[in-house]
């Protein structure tokens, strides 16, 4: 039953991914800037033959459908093409180099958001309209309404420039990167027992992580709060109380488990938004990850790189939603996989 459910969901992903890749490819194709002109712009005098040769090398002289097919069939084997702007490096290797940075930031923001949202949502639901609930609700609404790029700048001014508590850009202090194992500086530092590197990595993650986490923390907190309020009024919760179970068991075990079911969906959706948030936040904090790579690649008309990054974002997004569905089915015995 589980296998069939997984299989069906995976098959459903295929048309979605083909659609996404087609839209991306089409958009990139319609953009007026010719990448070869971009590349040769700095090269000085070039002959028409050299231009044609380069266009042929990148397959730009083929018809649109052929180019798209080449892109798809290569992508399926992990070959994402050759970057126009990074001295002809393969796109896959550029992305591989940046991916750990974004993964680390996203994971950090994800954990931070849940760490803020889960306790706040539960506590707020215990006394709706109480002091804690009111403060948390207002904070959540502000969290949703804050433009991330501005919050980043304000935090940089306060904690970086005024108080000098935290660095305002980059991933780790110069020359402090730990030996590479996973590529995630924080985890590598932990594994190698490198205390100063761990400290530096966390200091660099804190501000961008917080800005990235703010809207997610707000949305998750609100969802959990409202579903907890609903669940706490249910008969079976009253019954658990009447049985004389301690309140912590009633709230933590009976109520929370059911309140988490709708929350999982919001968590997945918001994690997807963390991915787009990356682009802005990494640009603000000059954080060397995929988001900044995408923004830079668009500026340089580097089609293969943009296509590949968008595709990676879309795949992660779709897989996240699949993951959420699986967790939901696992949590909720009334929903059967099928």
């Amino acid at each position, binding site marked *: 039953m589980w296998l069939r459910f997984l299989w069906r969901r995976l098959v459903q992903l295929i*048309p*979605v*991914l083909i*659609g*996404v890749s087609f*839209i*991306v490819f089409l*958009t*990139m194709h*319609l*953009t*007026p*800037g010719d990448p070869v002109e971009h590349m040769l712009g700095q090269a000085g005098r070039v002959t028409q033959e050299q231009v044609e040769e380069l266009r042929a090398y990148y397959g730009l002289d083929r018809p649109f459908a052929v180019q798209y097919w080449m892109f798809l069939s290569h992508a399926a084997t992990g070959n994402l093409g050759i970057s126009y702007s990074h001295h002809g490096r393969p796109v896959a290797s550029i992305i591989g180099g940046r991916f750990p940075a974004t993964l680390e930031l996203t994971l950090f923001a994800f954990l931070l958001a849940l760490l803020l949202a889960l306790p706040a949502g539960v506590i707020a639901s215990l006394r709706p309209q109480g002091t804690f609930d009111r403060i948390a609700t207002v904070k959540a*609404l*502000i969290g*949703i*309404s*804050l*433009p*991330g*790029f*501005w*919050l980043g*700048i*304000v935090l*940089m*001014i306060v904690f970086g*420039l005024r108080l000098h508590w935290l660095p305002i850009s980059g991933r780790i202090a110069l020359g402090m990167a730990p030996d590479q194992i996973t590529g995630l500086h924080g985890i590598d530092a932990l594994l190698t027992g490198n205390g100063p590197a761990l400290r530096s990595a966390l200091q660099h993650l804190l501000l961008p992580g917080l800005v990235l986490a703010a809207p997610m923390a707000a949305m998750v907190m*609100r*969802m959990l*709060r*409202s579903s907890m309020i609903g669940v706490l009024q249910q008969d079976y919760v009253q019954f658990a109380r009447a049985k004389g179970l301690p309140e912590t068991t009633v709230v933590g075990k009976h109520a929370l488990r059911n309140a988490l079911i709708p929350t999982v969906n919001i968590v997945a959706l918001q994690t*997807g938004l963390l*991915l*787009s948030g990356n*682009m*802005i936040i990494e*640009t*603000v904090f000059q954080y060397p990850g995929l988001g900044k790579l*995408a*923004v830079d690649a*668009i*500026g340089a*008309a580097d089609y293969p790189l*943009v296509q590949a*990054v*968008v595709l990676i*974002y*879309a795949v992660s*997004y*779709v897989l996240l*939603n699949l993951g959420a569905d699986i967790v939901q089915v696992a949590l909720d015995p009334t929903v059967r996989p099928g």
Partner: protein
Amino acid sequence: MLQVLADDQLVATSSATPPGMLRVLSRNRMAMAAALVIAGFLVMAALAPALAPHDPNQQHPEAIRLPPAWERGGAEAFLLGTDSLGRDLLSRIIYGARVSIMLGVAVVLLTLVVGTALGMLAGYFGGPLDAVASRLVDVLLAFPFLIFALAIMAATGPNLGALVLALAFKGWVDFYRVVRGDVLSARGAAYVIAARGLGASTPHILFREILPNVVPPIIVVATLRMATIIIAEASLSFLGIGVPPSIPAWGTMVSDGRADIAAAWWIATFPGLAILLLVLSVNLFGEGLRDALDPRMSL
């Protein structure tokens, strides 16, 4: 059957009609305060030439990076200070309201019309149209919106028409989903079956019977979308690929101030505060509307 019953009851309650919504809303103090702030921004945008103390693009070479009036070195003439070109921040913020509100309204209207039309057709007729539209929605939902907007804007350069399209690209999906769901359940509702039995034409049923009942949720979605669009527009302008630089826009102003945060904190800070205040008010008002429409929907 249960679904149909629930929807009929929803339609029957007083708050699910626009006047009923307003009555409940008027008792929500936070939402009313938010409405006042929004009205203030609207007045500011409409009367910008009369309210702004200076021309927003005029450079004052004698007053570059002047701090706000209450800080040491500030001047009465430039209440919120000036930027690195000596332009008055207050005047630029007042004018900046225009492009934020205009783009927000334009994008929301466009996505509302497209999403509602498609949602009604897909919900009412079902079949291949519904299948195609719903697949398209799946694809769009899997799409990181911002990167697509970035790609379009990078290709066309900062210009308002492309900006509206880039922002509208995915926004209609929210309207589509709400409307399709509501129409789908209305299709079997007693009042629609009755209208059909009386010989009403399909356009009559769609526009005169069903549409009025999906107006309240559409208003709620439109308000909450507005908040998202304002932030998205400001984000693109911040990256330098949104509103053209000749038009004062809040996102552009924050970006202008980014290089100066060490020497002149106010340049990036105040325009961002304007965004926060407007978006917060729109969100508060939208949630008030949603609570008034149906308290069960509230988060």
